[in-house]
């Protein structure tokens, strides 16, 4: 019952925030006329709304059944590809360093392996993992190229994100107490990383630093998506709401970019 209520509230807030962001971006398209990144962002928003409408309708009509590989997967993958294109345009196609690409790719592959281990849906998870991995590489590259983080912050994120993967892997092979402990520590770590990324993004937006704030906001969105895919209900709903906040910060960063021009 509680889960049902949380599901409906989260879905509604999620859909409402995406619709609002799309409307705001569309209205400001006159300002964004020469901004290719904003056009990619608008396409991503429209894809997301359609995907969420499908998800909404499915949840109303078939609340107890899991969606297999379905139509909204294509839209979700399109979102990742379009947001990556948005970043590429913003940073004039500057390629990320090889070490960053390797780390992001291996991290995405590890996540994909975990999803497959839980769901058994190979095709869906591999497709999603490939698109998400591409988005993660571009986002990590943007964070690296803008020199957003100090060495200590980089070490913190590296250790905490890979610890999450390690702990989630442990939950696959253990039972009862150890599994619960690993799960709980995982959720704390994931929440801590979200809070820190949120603080970093807000700080850069306050400093009106367009490049850094966009990179930070995109990374926050990417991390919230990872947390969503690694979480069960009701934590899934919390991550969903944080993801909605992340995309609002992406829009705010794009507006700073336009103001700078």
């Amino acid at each position: 019952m509680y889960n049902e209520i949380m599901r409906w509230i989260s879905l509604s807030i999620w859909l409402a925030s995406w619709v609002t962001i799309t409307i705001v971006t569309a209205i400001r398209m006159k300002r964004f006329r020469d901004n290719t990144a904003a056009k990619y962002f608008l396409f991503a928003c429209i894809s997301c709304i359609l995907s969420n409408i499908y998800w909404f309708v499915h949840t109303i009509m078939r609340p107890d059944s899991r969606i297999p590989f379905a139509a909204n997967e294509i839209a979700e993958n399109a979102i990742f590809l379009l947001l990556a294109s948005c970043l590429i345009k913003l940073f004039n196609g500057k390629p990320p360093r090889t070490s960053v690409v390797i780390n992001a790719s291996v991290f995405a592959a590890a996540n994909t392996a975990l999803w497959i281990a839980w769901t058994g849906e190979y095709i869906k998870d591999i497709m999603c993992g490939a698109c998400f991995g591409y988005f993660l590489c571009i986002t990590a590259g943007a964070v690296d190229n803008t020199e957003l983080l100090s060495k200590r912050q980089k070490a913190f994120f590296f250790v905490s994100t890979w610890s999450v993967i390690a702990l989630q892997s442990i939950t696959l092979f253990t039972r009862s107490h150890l599994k619960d402990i690993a799960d709980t520590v995982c959720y704390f770590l994931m929440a801590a990383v979200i809070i820190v990324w949120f603080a970093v993004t807000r700080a850069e937006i306050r400093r009106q630093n367009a490049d850094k704030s966009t990179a930070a906001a995109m990374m926050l969105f990417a991390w919230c998506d990872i947390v969503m895919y690694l979480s069960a209900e009701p934590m899934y709903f919390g991550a969903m709401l944080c993801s909605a906040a992340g995309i609002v910060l992406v829009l705010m960063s794009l507006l700073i970019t336009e103001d700078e021009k």
Partner: protein
Amino acid sequence: MIYAENILICIAAPLIISLLFTNGNVRIFIGSILTGMTACLLCAYINGFIDITSGLGAEQTAVYYSPIVEEFVKLLPLLFLLAVFEPDSDTLFLSALGIGSGFATFENCCYLLTSGSSSFSYVLIRGMAVGVMHIVSIMMLALGLEIAKRLRLLSFQTVVCALSFSITFHAIYNLLVSEEGITSYIGYILPTVAAIILNILLSSMRQTNERSSTDKLP
């Protein structure tokens, strides 16, 4: 069991002959209708294969996999057209309309031969709901491609995005009509409403086009 290939040959033969006596946009439209009908037959093979290999059943395959297969197959001739002929927007929309009409017409012919045409409500649903849905979904796809082309954003990412518009619309329709009740009525009305909105969008795009071309005149 119906012999869909024979039905295709029977319907397509006069249309193929008519290509010899037409030119310009009429020829493009008839060619697109033939392409749409062939695409429909191809989708039937693929959906049948997925039905058997996935073990989901015909109904679940129609709800979850058919939209992806059908819209992807409809995209292929449009992509070919864009890549090889670089058509203007009118030609692109005309081709999309032809593909969608051909697809819907052939599908309806096969369903009527299988289920009969005695039930007027069934016939109305097949014509006004399913038929219109196929046209609206491919027109959404064409509109997405055209907007991407105009904004100079035509790339793999925007093609996937345009495809996701049509797939999701088709999938929402299939999901809504999969169960009896108020959702199925919403599903039946959805294509007609979407067609009206799409027509308004396309008309305003054409007007903007004409205005910008007259502004450029000395």
